[in-house]
């Protein structure tokens, strides 16, 4: 047993340092993005950067609170947390406030709170709890179904509030399930389905089907033990149906703005003039954000010196597009360092998760790493034009209280769990 005075040394300080690095650098960039030309007033709370300072202060309070609670508390009450967050998501349908087309906020006075930011943590806890139960077998289909249920329920509620970006985050749990033994076939099917969908959109139905048939049949005829001909035929048929459905949804059911984003991402518009026009109008954000990043060059324009940042050329720059500020003002050096710090943090969480003796802690840690990874991947990928525009915040960086607190809770519950592994014998 460790002595009482040594207890706080059990926390993984590397993770905590990385966390504060990101939050601190994030704030510097929010300051730059939301300030334009006039003097900096830290305590004028009409400025976003001043508000964010409060949010950061409150999150420190949160951290102390989370770390002071008993580690077992989180495991034991995980179902309660899950239930509360589901109720709060449902409650949005009645009390929710609509901001930017999504009904994802509770408004208390001038303060707004976004329950979906906390639902991720709750879901992570619930998945870890259910999966670590001795009676759960991930190989059994019924348990797989129940796990999917736990994940899909909040995701569905968020989708119904028209926040497609946050819904996508729940795909992070796939990594957790896979790590814990979800059969290989799911991964294969998932990857193939994504490839098939992209191909169906980009190259059309006929080419996609021909290529699929060719691959499937080649595979079939080169096998030593050849199963009945029925099997490849079904695969081709299902592929065809999927490809058709994807195209059909893209053409008829997808909201216009989402359709356009995909069109631009995959360059589906044949007419180059029209495509360029689309880039300047529909993909205005993306166009401006790429320009801002590229404007930074190797060394960047310097703190508060980014011309496109100062001129507010990039909309939503202090929230989802915060990385453009890094790109313009800190250049290739600053952006690369930011990417590296993110990668280090995620990798550190994975390493910590892997060394957990307690199954619950390991699975929760894995969920934390996956969620952070999905956010990091989608946000920066979007800002740099690698994937279609999906509006989700960059963890610890983007402006916003709910987001910051959500990620703080998510990460620090794990740090607490990790600090407790010594007691898990």
């Amino acid at each position, binding site marked *: 047993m460790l002595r009482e005075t040594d207890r706080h040394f059990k926390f993984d300080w590397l993770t905590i340092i990385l966390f504060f690095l990101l939050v601190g650098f994030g704030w510097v960039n929010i300051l730059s993005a939301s300030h*334009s*030309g006039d003097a900096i007033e830290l305590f004028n709370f009409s400025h976003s950067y001043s508000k964010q300072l409060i949010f950061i202060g409150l999150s420190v309070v949160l951290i102390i609170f989370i770390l002071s609670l008993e580690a077992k508390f989180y495991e034991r009450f995980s179902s309660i947390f899950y239930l509360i967050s589901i109720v709060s998501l449902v409650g949005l349908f009645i009390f929710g406030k609509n901001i930017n087309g999504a009904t994802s906020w509770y408004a208390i006075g001038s303060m707004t709170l976004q329950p979906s930011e906390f639902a991720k943590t709750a879901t992570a806890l619930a998945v870890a709890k259910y999966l670590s139960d001795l009676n759960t077998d991930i190989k059994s289909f019924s348990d797989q179904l129940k796990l999917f249920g736990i994940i899909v329920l909040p995701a569905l509620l968020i989708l119904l509030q028209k926040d497609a970006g946050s819904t996508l985050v729940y795909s992070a749990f796939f*990594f957790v399930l*896979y*790590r814990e*033994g979800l059969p290989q076939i799911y991964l294969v099917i998932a990857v193939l389905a994504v490839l098939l969908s992209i191909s169906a959109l980009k190259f059309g139905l006929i080419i996609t089907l021909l290529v699929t048939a060719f691959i499937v049949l080649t595979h079939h005829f080169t096998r030593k033990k050849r199963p009945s001909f029925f099997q490849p035929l079904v695969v081709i048929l299902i592929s065809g149906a999927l490809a058709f459905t994807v195209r059909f949804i893209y053409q008829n059911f997808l909201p216009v703005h989402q359709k356009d984003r995909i069109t631009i991402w995959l360059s589906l518009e044949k007419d180059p003039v029209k495509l360029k026009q689309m880039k300047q109008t529909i993909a205005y954000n993306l166009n401006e954000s*790429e*320009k801002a*990043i*590229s*404007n*930074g*060059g*190797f060394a960047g324009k310097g703190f508060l*010196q980014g*011309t*496109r940042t*100062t*001129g*507010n*050329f990039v909309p939503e720059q202090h929230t989802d597009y915060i990385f453009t500020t890094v*790109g313009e003002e800190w*250049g*290739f050096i600053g*952006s*690369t360092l930011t*990417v*590296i710090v*993110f*990668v280090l943090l*995620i*990798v550190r969480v*994975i390493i910590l998760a*892997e060394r957990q003796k307690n199954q619950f802690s390991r699975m929760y840690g*894995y969920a934390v*790493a*996956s969620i952070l*990874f999905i956010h*990091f*991947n989608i946000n*920066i*990928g979007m800002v*740099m034009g*690698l994937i279609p525009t999906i509006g989700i915040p960059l963890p610890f960086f983007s402006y916003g209280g709910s987001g910051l607190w959500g990620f703080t809770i998510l990460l620090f519950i794990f740090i607490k769990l990790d600090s407790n592994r010594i007691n898990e014998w």
Partner: protein
Amino acid sequence: MRKYILFFFVIIVGIIFIGRLLYLQVFNSHAQSIYDDNAIRTVFNYPKRGFVYDRNGKLLVSNQPSYDVMVIPRDVKPLDTLEFCSLLKINKEQFLNKYNKARHYSPRLPSVFVSHLAKEDYAILQEKMRKYKGFYIQKRSLRKYETNIGANVLGDIGEVNSRDIAKDNYYHSGDLIGKQGVEASYENILRGQKGIKFIQKDIHNQDIGPYKNGKYDTLPRAGKDIKITIDADLQAYGELLMTNKRGGVIAIEPKTGEILAMVSAPTYNPNSLVGRNRSKNFTKLFNDSIAKPLFNRSLQGVYEPGSPFKLMNALIALEENVMSPNEKVTCYHGIKYGNRFMGCHCPSGKRNDMIEGIEESCNAYFLTAYRRILDKYENASVGIDKWSKHVKSFGLGNYLNNDLFVGQKGRIPDREYYSYQYPKTFYSTYTVSNAIGQGEVATTPIQLANMTAAIANRGFYFTPHIIKSIEGDTIPESFKTPKYTSISKENFEPVIEGMHQVYKTGTASSLKIKDIEICGKTGTVENFTRIDSVRTQLTDHSIFVAFAPKDDPKIAIAVFVENGYWGSRFAGKVASLMIEKHLKGEITRTDLEDWLLSHSLENEYAKPYSGKPFKINGQTELQVIPPEEFNKLKQKLNQLN
């Protein structure tokens, strides 16, 4: 394996992101230049453009302020439109029109509301301007021509076009650049260096302060003043004499190559290309395809030189030793060559030596000389190349490489030039027209003036140029070094004596000026045009070259008057008067002056466009201008003196 899948993904994504950053920020970073960054507005601070003075220090071109009323539609507050319109001298309809146009362009950006306010209007408006929110006055600088002369010399400035911008990155859209004349050739000296201010913009294109507190801003540097070689008084006099005529006059100071006067007629008032009416007036001048006022006839007009070119043949014949000054050639009212005949106005049986040949401009004499030059060598092919080389050493047949904005090569043929027409055989008889300055020979007035200067100098010339001095700078060395011709000094004397005789007893004897020893040569050049694709002969061009005084030449001049008939009729008079004006400063031959001012060639120029058959040369009557118009010209003349 399952343990590492997420780890693997994270690393891969990190690498992809860094790769993308590398592409966006290092390899494809396109906005490093602050000029290209559309978040930065570049504001230019234009310096004073240099002044232009004439050789005697008389100010020719300066600057004048011009005031534009600007509007930012978004900032406009309700106003007393009636009063505002009356101040701007527009009506309410125009006001709304202009306002809507500006708002349509951009509600946040300034647009020109009324341009080029008159100075008086500006004074009144300035006091009341504070009442009209959203409007302000912007000062601009325009060129001011202090005289009405020398439009073709001074040139004008106008907005740069896309070609100028592509050629020199100093220029940006909206900048002004010299378009013609001295303004164009000394653009780099006159313009100075503009100052640049960088201003940070926001997404609405509004200014939000200096970029990096003005760290990169530069101050403008004023343009330098220049002095040109033109004598404003002589230039004005020449332009007046050429009223109602078409053609060019070039006067050169032989000792320096400085151009004293450069007249191109018809001309225009340079002030008409300044300010509000620039584009309207320019279009009018540009579209005048008959009189072509923008065509600088003294530099660009390529004409057959006619008889003055006989001087060249005389010089070459002496240099090549195929004629001696005293040898006589008999003229039979012309001369036979091969089985053809070239006419001449000499009485049949007249025997001319070189001096008489020049004095009488005898075709027979120069045809003989020309044929002897070509036949001196084994064949005429070698001969004509020798001949061509001599001629070109006078600066004919090529660009003069001077500081004038336009120019023409003219044409001095050699054997190669004829190789298409005469691929095999080539005899001296084939090209005899060159002997009398017709046929394939063609020159511009400035080349002829330069040739005359070279004769006056007895064998060398300075490249004719227009720059006298540059404030705090020197003029190019090439303008100060003499160019030697291939004719030796002693061979000039008989030719100059011949030219002197032209004035004494020859074709220009009626143009004598008291107390000035002038050497000259007349020219009468046949010319043709196409009317409805029929080759039609027009009245001959009147040409004259001269220099004076004979032994200490101070001025060499070439005058070209289109369709003026014979040499001394128009061109000779102009040349004599300009020489007198330059050397004496006053005119004794006012009879010549009156004659020139009272006679017009406009009816002659109208003939080819009349659509009717017409007569030429001797069968026509010279147009005399109405007395009131003549009095007006006389008045102008009195103002000059």
